[in-house]
């Protein structure tokens, strides 16, 4: 049966799933001493909302032609994607223990041939958005009613391929496509605005022919309302700028560039798990 349709209880379900995802991602990264927790935690509330309140999918049929698609363009945030797919029922929980192990299906960046539920291989930045655009155009050609969502990092927006895709999507009015930008304002080395500034990001997308909404990327109510809105009511592709906090949920990780790929020591792990309740 298709999953994740919104109910009156969605907010509580999403909150519980997001907490579980943060706990599991923390355990995976601590165990392997590898990963990208900062970007995982800024995006997890978006993914939890999609998988438990928005997307139409069936984990027993990952190739179902009419499924809604979610493309994780910031492929390094596997702590968010893998815990979401696991929570959604695509694979058993013990697979998470193999994270980044020798020949693991849980590669450091997602591979669709290793893991059910992964729509395309990402990792190099600026790839997921054009692929998601192609999926959405395929839906338009077929007059299919599935929706396509893609999440990019904000630093990732510096890759030019995104702007090629933004131009095409705006020109073709690919309204069944939703771009979510994880706007935590930090990239690997520094603040985005101190590196290659993106602001005003909303005006840029408006100028490219998009409908733009800015929301709190950790507010389940706003996320549900924005991401779950029916496609039929708009004539343009939708850009959701989700204002987020890198490392959200763990006090000492929040808004710190060093937690892009920082990994916790034993003391930090214990502290983090104490906070993730």
């Amino acid at each position, binding site marked *: 049966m298709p999953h994740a349709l919104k109910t009156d209880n969605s907010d509580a379900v999403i909150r519980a799933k997001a907490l579980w995802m943060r706990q599991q991602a923390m355990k995976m990264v601590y165990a392997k001493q590898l990963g990208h927790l900062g970007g995982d935690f800024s995006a997890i509330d978006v993914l939890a909302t999609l998988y438990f309140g928005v997307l139409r999918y069936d984990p027993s049929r990952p190739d179902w032609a009419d499924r809604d698609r979610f493309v994780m363009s910031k492929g390094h945030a596997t702590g968010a994607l893998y815990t979401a797919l696991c929570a959604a029922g695509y694979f058993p929980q013990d697979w998470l223990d193999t994270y980044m192990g020798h020949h693991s299906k849980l590669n450091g960046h997602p591979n669709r041939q290793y893991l059910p539920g992964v729509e*395309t291989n990402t990792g190099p930045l600026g790839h997921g958005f054009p692929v998601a655009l192609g999926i959405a155009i*395929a839906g338009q050609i077929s007059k299919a009613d599935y929706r396509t969502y893609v999440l990019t990092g904000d630093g990732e927006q510096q890759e030019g391929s995104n702007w*090629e895709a933004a131009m*095409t999507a705006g020109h073709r009015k690919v309204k069944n496509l939703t771009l979510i930008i994880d706007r935590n304002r930090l990239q690997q080395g520094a603040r985005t605005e101190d590196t290659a500034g993106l602001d005003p990001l909303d005006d840029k997308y408006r100028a490219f022919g998009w409908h733009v909404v800015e929301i709190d990327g950790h507010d389940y109510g706003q996320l549900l309302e924005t991401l779950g809105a029916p496609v039929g009511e708009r004539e343009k592709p939708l850009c959701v700028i989700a204002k987020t906090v890198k490392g959200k949920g763990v006090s000492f990780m929040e808004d710190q560039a060093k937690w892009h790929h920082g990994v916790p020591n034993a003391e930090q792990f214990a502290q983090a798990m104490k906070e993730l309740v």
Partner: protein
Amino acid sequence: MAVAAATTATGFDCRKAWAETLESLAAADERIVVVVNDSVGSSNLGGFQEKFPRRTVNVGIAEQNMVGVAAGLANGGRIPFVSAASCFLTARALEQIKADVAYAGFNVKLVGQSSGIAYGELGATHHSIEDFAWLRALGPITVIAPCDAWETAEAVKWAAAHEGPVYLRLSRMKVPTLDLPDRSFTPGKAELQRAGTDVTIIANGTTVHLAIEAAETLAAEGISARVLNMHTITPLDTDAVISAARETGAIVTVEEALDRGGLGGAVAECTSATHPVPVQRVGFPGFMPTGSIASLFEEFGLSREGIAGAARIAIRRKGA
């Protein structure tokens, strides 16, 4: 000059065969779409666009997006044929070809138009001579360079039916249709154009008919040259290469491409690991100067006499 056969108006522009075949396939299979970078005209896809406007996805001059969109179209159940000048398709979008097509394994057909030095006078930015080396490095992609209009049509039909990524390297250069009885096209299987025992000339694409001319020149000197049309570089027909090495003891490779990393490189890798024999590689040494196709082919030995000369050297090196 003998080289004239490559470029005179006596042959066929294979883009006609490409476009007619694709239109016919698309009429029967609605999954087929084309993805272009403002390259409808240069790809001879005006007719396709007229017949199938919804299935013509023109992303504008944006090659990275073009290949990514194609991967997405494959995710959505379509069979995308990406058609663009091969110099821009393979160079500008190489990471998309690597990650979104080869590594992700999507059923995308990449069609490199006006490959090699078809844009001779426009210079090295517009030449596509590195594409064999780049695409060969991405193993899951089948790499095919048809030698004439008939083979182009066969390759397009096969690519549409095959589940998996394919690179078709086409040319606007006029080439004669080769006259062989009972031809059949099997990817990964070399086509024997001419039997021979003293040396084997292995060619593909626009150079196959020149290899045949060279074999005629050699025959007049009493040298028996085998000619293989190696239309598929990946996967390479290693059986045909090893047989050529064993049975003729010397090999010449000919390609309208860099003389490293392409057909010649593949053949040399194969023979060095199995049955080492002299391998003379005819191709281009690097960035090419400006010039007409005919003058550049002549200068760099992609000609009846240039290939025959390479064969004489290969034969001289036997046992050396």
